[in-house]
């Protein structure tokens, strides 16, 4: 199908305007504001330091991505090929970490693996030790584990979707021709899954590459990524030129990875006839398969379930400070932290009722889902049949993931502190103070996810199907509805779930704006954690539990939507 240049550009119109306005323009403004090459000669200490930081950033991201694939691929296989009890719940379990604020994840990891964590307490009691044997927080392992914990869901969803519609008869044929299971995996399955594995790896890698909260909170001050260094330079040293320079380095790296990905992906994408997912699914048969499924379920409960369980447990136990007189309050259960959430005891101007916070969070998330799907769909469709234009645009689309949120936040301040369209809108109504800016900022981050998950699904639709339908007299709309949609509906659900979690988790972008008080669940958690006292800590844990529940239920709901056609494919 050859399209006129205008037709080619049309699907890009909305995403281009959106990203141009809310990503590239503010970014360019702040980089132009801060970029100052004269500073390079003045303090040459920054550059060698930047190289050291860059090396570690790359190293930990590569290692984290490998480990995430190692954990995610078997799980993707599990969800794609097997039917087992509570499947949707397990899938939601792996997705919840993705949106938890880092402070909360750090707290639950410490509760589990910290010096006074359950694991160490048990080991100390068992081995009769005076000191905790396991050192976890403050090590590279903590960073890697947290990255896997956060990002495994990306692999599970993107690769899992591709795996689900990959015809199981292909590997069955290989097996019947005498190939071992390993040979089949290596020569049949993995090559066919390469596009989705690459797409997932790129997303995971970029997420780890720009990691910031995990490094600071779980790795500790001895580790620094580029993003951490940007944060320190921009917001603590107030050295915008150093921050801009580092941001440019980070952006160039992101662009580089995306270009490499783009060149490679075209070579490895092969179109095979997709098969309805339910035809490929079976209950585990035989001892080996049952063992495989049971083992992975156990792993998920251990790795995703236990840290998540720490939060609700803490939110209902007395979290009293360690008093001299401990006889007064032993350990026990309480709902005090939840009931306290509903009381504005100090009649504070900034009191956050939990329902309001949940409602704001959900409203932002709903807007983000709609907006990012509406913008991502045309873009992904165009990318799935790339022309010259797409080759240029493709790598640029990943940049929002590689842009420092600190820098972008400052760019928003610089750009949107004036009326956007003078004369069109009332003079003092700047977008910056509008609550709408929050879902807009979330959408810039969600968009790369949405586009990548949709694109790898769309790319696998054999064009013959569309041509056959066209020959039979189907209109463009009918082709889309009856050919494209049934095959990609699963990916749309995934993309929506990604956008939902990105928005619920805030990812720092919102807190970097300057805005009137529209509290969300994560901002409420941070507010409680910023003051001492058992009640504050308990309420933070209670609020985090509510956030977890809201997210888990939201994902279950999205997956249950029963999109038309999902049954067929």
């Amino acid at each position: 199908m050859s399209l006129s240049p205008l037709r080619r550009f049309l699907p890009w119109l909305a995403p281009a305007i959106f990203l141009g306005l809310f990503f590239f323009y503010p970014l360019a403004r702040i980089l132009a504001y801060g970029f100052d090459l004269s500073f390079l000669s003045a303090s040459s200490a920054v550059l060698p330091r930047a190289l050291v930081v860059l090396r570690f950033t790359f190293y930990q991201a590569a290692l984290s991505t490998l480990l995430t694939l190692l954990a995610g691929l078997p799980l993707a296989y599990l969800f794609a090929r097997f039917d087992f009890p509570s499947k949707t719940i397990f899938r939601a379990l792996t997705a919840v970490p993705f949106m938890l604020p880092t402070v909360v994840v750090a707290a639950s990891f410490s509760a589990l693996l910290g010096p006074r964590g359950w694991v160490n307490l048990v080991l100390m009691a068992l081995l009769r030790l005076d000191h905790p044997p396991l050192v976890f927080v403050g090590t590279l392992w903590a960073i890697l584990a947290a990255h896997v914990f956060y990002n495994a869901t990306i692999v599970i969803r993107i690769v899992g979707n591709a795996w689900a519609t990959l015809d199981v008869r292909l590997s069955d044929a290989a097996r019947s021709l005498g190939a071992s299971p390993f040979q089949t995996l290596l020569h049949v399955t993995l090559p066919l899954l390469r596009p989705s594995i690459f797409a997932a790896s790129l997303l995971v890698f970029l997420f780890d590459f720009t990691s910031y909260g995990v490094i600071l909170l779980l790795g500790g001050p001895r580790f620094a990524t580029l993003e951490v260094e940007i944060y320190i330079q921009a917001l603590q040293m107030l050295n915008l030129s150093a921050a801009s320079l580092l941001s440019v380095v980070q952006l160039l790296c992101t662009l580089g990875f995306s270009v490499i990905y783009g060149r490679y992906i075209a070579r490895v994408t092969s179109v095979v006839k997709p098969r309805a997912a339910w035809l490929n699914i079976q209950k585990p048969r035989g001892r080996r398969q049952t063992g495989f499924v049971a083992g992975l379920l156990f792993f998920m409960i251990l790795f995703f379930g236990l840290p998540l369980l720490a939060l609700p447990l803490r939110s209902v136990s007395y979290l009293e400070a360690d008093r001299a007189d401990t006889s007064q309050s032993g350990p026990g259960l309480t709902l005090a932290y939840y009931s306290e959430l509903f009381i504005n005891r100090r009649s504070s101007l900034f009191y956050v009722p939990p329902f309001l916070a949940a409602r704001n969070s959900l409203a932002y998330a709903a807007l983000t889902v709609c907006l990012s799907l509406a913008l991502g769909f045309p873009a992904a469709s165009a990318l799935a049949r790339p022309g010259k234009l797409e080759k240029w645009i493709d790598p640029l689309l990943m940049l929002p993931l590689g842009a420092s949120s600190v820098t972008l936040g400052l760019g928003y301040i610089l750009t949107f502190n004036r009326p956007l369209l003078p004369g069109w809108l009332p003079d003092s109504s700047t977008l910056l103070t509008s609550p709408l800016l929050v879902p807009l900022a979330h959408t810039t981050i969600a968009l790369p996810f949405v586009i990548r998950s949709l694109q790898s699904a769309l790319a696998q639709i054999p064009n013959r199907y569309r041509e056959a339908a066209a020959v039979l007299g189907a209109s463009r709309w009918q082709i889309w509805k009856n050919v494209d949609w049934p095959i990609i509906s699963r990916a749309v659900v995934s993309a929506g779930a990604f956008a939902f979690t990105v928005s619920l988790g805030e990812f720092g972008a919102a807190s970097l704006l300057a805005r009137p008080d529209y509290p969300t669940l994560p901002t409420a958690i941070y507010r409680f954690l910023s003051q001492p006292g058992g009640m504050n800590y308990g309420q933070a844990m209670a609020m985090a539990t509510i956030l977890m529940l809201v997210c888990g239920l939201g994902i279950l709901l999205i997956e249950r939507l029963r999109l038309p056609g999902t049954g067929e494919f």
Partner: protein
Amino acid sequence: MKRILFALVLFSLCLSACGSVAVNQTQADTPLPSDVPPTPFAPVAGSAPRALTVMTHDSFSASDGVIQEFEQANNVKITFLKSGDAGAALNKAIISKDAPLADVFYGVDNTFLTRALDAGIFESYASPLIDRIPDEFKLDLKNRAIPVDYGDVCINYSKAFFAKNDLPVPASLDDLIKPEYNGMLVVENPATSSPGLAFLLATIQKYGDPGYLDYWKSLRANGVVVVDGWETAYYTNFSASSGHGPQPMVVSYSSSPAAEVAFSTTPMDDSPTGTVNAPGTCFRQVEFVGILAGTKNRDLAEKFVDFMLDVPFQEGMPLNMFVYPVNPQAALPDVFTKYAQPSVQPASAPADLSTKRDSWIEAWTQTVLR
């Protein structure tokens, strides 16, 4: 199938509608600083209220009633722009100074003060109430930055731990490098945390430059634990907080023991934590307010600054933000007088802070972390 598709579209429309309704509602809760056209049912007797915007950091808090009183008395609606932590908020005020986002900025402290003054973001204002404030807090003689409150960054300790182990509480910075306190102190990274920087400055005041680096070498040898920020230090590492961490001493505030009582789960008659308040062990942070240059509401901004310095607002600050009021006429709440120990001769900002700040942090990083 068409019907289901329709239902889907309808659902997403509903979602977005819910979204905008919710957003509109919150908008009604805290109106934007836009010139909202006066509705015929507005409860205001005369004209529509004017708008005043106050930019501040995320820790800012105040009582509803006190702010409402000011709003009613002056027929004004205040919007507070929360703009991140202290450093982030100041940076945002600086980069938006050509088209200021707000009329008033509150929350720059004495460690960042020269940045704000050098950037010229404030207009000077000699408030009639400034005479009531002790001179020690007035760090800008041109009255561009006006002191509002202060807090002392001090080492907090677990009373239970020191009682149980029969160990004396350290009485000076020198004590902290003694072997009996090995591995017992957690501090914040001065590059990412404001109490962390404050504690570093206290050691610089005590040991001088470069003497402080030797002190930190000894602290490092004695097992000092460094974390990124106050939340981690206090809730994950400190043993007397609800996190029950491994270190019995933490760099926090002299008001933290009072907060432990005020925010306890069950009523307490004594704080589980105490403060090391010996001379020179604490650092005094002073927070300032200023009128942003280029404001179109100078008269209201002046009134708001006066209001912040006056007794009702000053008396609300301790329990809202756990800081001390600078106005000596403001009475402290009971929980402060009973459980917070004021520090003795706290360190103040070194004179060459503005020029040396970055190099001190860099040298500290090389000494303690690398």
